[in-house]
């Protein structure tokens, strides 16, 4: 089996490296590699730079302003971006709503909304989860009642990532209460400045704000904002979750993070000896490195299958479980390596003149705690195991 990229793919990789070296703003990359918060302005700047090159939505078809990348090119792109310390592309418009509109939207919706995703006019967020509807998304209760050519929306969404920066939200809402729960759900687009919407920040475990609760009270939304047919939102939700799980293995994040831990373990000394010479710590590193190297190939094998048009069944779930476990294990190592220097609550003062942790590592403990989320969201790892088990037992 050929474990290397094809000549074309390698040429693309080289192009990307040049581009990133030249165009990725240093200040943004520095924040990303130090695991500090990336501001709204940083994200918008980076999107604009990518968009100018035509690479913000490389996997979109050419007709919609993309490059028509296949799974391997998409993977190469994401991996190189991670290694260079580029911020993650905010997925809600580009990776989620975009593909949904191409598949289910009207020509008017496509013509109106897709360009606004690319040029940054719209910042979308995802209104799926509710306080009572997490893993069991189909039990969602937010209602949209028809009133002439409007829906009137009442209810609550939660966990809305980066909603504080968004001007629009795509929501799953209940348009029919009787029958099977999956059958009465619709997919609607809502302007966040509509009267009756209130967004409240939720503070996360490590002290940051990246998610929100959104309350809807008699919010009027034109019926034209429905995507697909009424009561057929569940199909869209499932389609979208498939897209949400691309790059779910996060190999690039892990490779970058592991390199950082290795260099950290060489920098930190214990009684004059580099930490990496501590057998117990080195064993932890070596074990994870083997797992990660295997993961790279697992990921590529599955991408190759997808590139050849094979239908992906269990693969995304496997990639999600293993990929998130590896990333969390690497976060765990970084925190561990710091010893007591991981203890301070991150602050400007400690980042700067006191420098307890080596340069760029003051936030390692915070990011270990924050990244507990990756095995919970996008369908928890337990739910992925249920999906896998169902598939395996159904023979």
């Amino acid at each position, binding site marked *: 089996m050929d474990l290397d990229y094809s000549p074309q793919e390698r040429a693309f990789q080289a192009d990307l490296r040049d581009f990133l070296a030249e165009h990725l703003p240093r200040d943004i990359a520095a924040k990303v590699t130090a695991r500090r918060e990336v501001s709204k302005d940083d994200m918008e700047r980076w999107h604009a730079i990518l968009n100018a090159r035509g690479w913000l939505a490389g996997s979109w078809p050419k007709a919609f302003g993309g490059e028509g990348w296949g799974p391997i090119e998409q993977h190469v792109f994401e991996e190189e971006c991670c290694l260079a310390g580029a911020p993650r592309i905010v997925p809600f418009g580009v990776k989620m709503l975009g593909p949904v509109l191409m598949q289910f939207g009207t020509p008017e919706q496509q013509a109106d909304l897709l360009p606004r995703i690319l040029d940054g006019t719209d910042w979308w967020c995802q209104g799926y989860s509710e306080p009572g509807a997490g893993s069991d998304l189909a039990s969602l209760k937010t209602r949209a009642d028809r009133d002439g050519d409007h829906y009137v929306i009442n209810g609550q969404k939660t966990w809305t990532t980066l909603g504080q920066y968004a001007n629009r939200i795509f929501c799953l809402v209940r348009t029919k209460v009787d029958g099977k729960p999956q059958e009465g759900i619709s997919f609607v687009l809502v302007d966040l400045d509509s009267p009756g919407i209130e967004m409240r920040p939720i503070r996360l475990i490590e002290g940051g704000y990246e998610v929100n609760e959104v309350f809807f009270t008699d919010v009027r939304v034109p019926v034209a904002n429905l995507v697909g047919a009424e009561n057929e939102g569940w199909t869209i939700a499932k389609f979208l979750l498939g897209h949400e799980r691309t790059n779910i293995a996060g190999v690039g994040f892990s490779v970058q993070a592991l390199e950082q831990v290795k260099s950290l373990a060489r920098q930190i000394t214990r009684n004059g000896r580099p930490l990496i010479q501590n057998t117990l710590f080195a064993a932890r590193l070596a074990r994870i490195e083997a797992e990660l190297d295997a993961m790279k190939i697992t990921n590529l094998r599955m991408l190759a299958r997808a590139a050849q048009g094979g239908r992906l069944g269990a693969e995304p779930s496997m990639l999600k479980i293993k990929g998130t476990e590896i990333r969390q294990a690497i976060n765990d190592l970084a925190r561990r390596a710091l010893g*007591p220097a991981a203890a301070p609550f991150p602050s400007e003062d400690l980042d700067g003149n006191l420098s307890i942790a080596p340069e760029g590592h003051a936030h390692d403990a915070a990011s270990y705690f924050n990244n507990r989320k990756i095995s919970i969201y996008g369908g928890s790892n*337990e739910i992925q195991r249920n999906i896998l088990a169902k598939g395996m037992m159904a023979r």
Partner: protein
Amino acid sequence: MSDDRRMLAETLRRYLSEQYGWDHRLRVAYQAPFHDPEKWAGMADLGLFHALVGEDRGGMGGSGFDIAVIFEEIGRALCPEPVLGAVMAARLLSATGTPLTALLSGETRYAVAIGELDAPYDLDGIACRADRTGDGWRLTGRKSVVYGGGVADRLLVAARANGQIALFDLAAAEADLHPYAMIDGGPAAEVLLEDTPATPILPAAQAALSDALDWGALALSAEALGAMEATSAALIDYLGTRKQFGQPIGTFQALQHRAVDLTIDIEQARSIVILAASAMGTPVQAKRVAQAKHLVGRVARKLAEEAIQMHGGIAMTWEYPVSHYAKRLVMIDHQLGDSDHHLGRLIETLQTA
């Protein structure tokens, strides 16, 4: 367990739940000075500090079990008061024959400054230097992440003097202190010493320092036990009440078995802490403490991660107490030797036996 001990534990539990409630805890733990002097005094009035010290030194406790029951309550309430410094200081001051009156009354807060960035857990790598000058001693060096350092009245500092590790006492005000909060709440500080005057109180302090580190590690292991009990109770309660797919999530076997494994792990952790508490002051103290801190470190981290995972998003929030318990459980492994450090000590005892 003796009646006195049980009574103190119950009184402390009541005091912490009534006087040191959750909202209060959150405010205090993250707002300078990251502890509450009034409640510290209240805890002193309950006799807390007397329980840390033996009768021969003017206290009313001082056994491994006394320390363990107190710290279990501190862990259960997630109390950020810097009692750890008092436990270790009491051992060190006892070894030097210094009177403990001000420590016992709670009037003087002590922090023990041993760890440095290059030598966070052990004495061999200590670089901080003590020099004799005309009329006394002066210290130069840096002590990192000194627990309770930002709110201490006095510091007990381990430094290299005449080729051995000696112990010094100084007023905290003499040092260049940089206080901060820890990620799991509570006070710590960087202690910068530059020709800082200090009083030598023990010239050959190696044994006394190792002993103080053992007692600190026992206290932290017991604190983790209390925090684990609280976390696991919250988890089991949540599994029984949170519904998805029309049933409590606790009915899913995938979660049940994991919750059961955690319960078994916590029982094991309790046993090793009991074993360590019973070994304090005996020849196997160091081994038992290393076993306890190692095993507790492993179990505590696993419980923290599993509790968050099985709660789902809610335990990722600042608002929900389990997130703070999880942080404390993980970060206990960063204090006075993590599970690998203590495993290393255990491996050495096997190899040299």
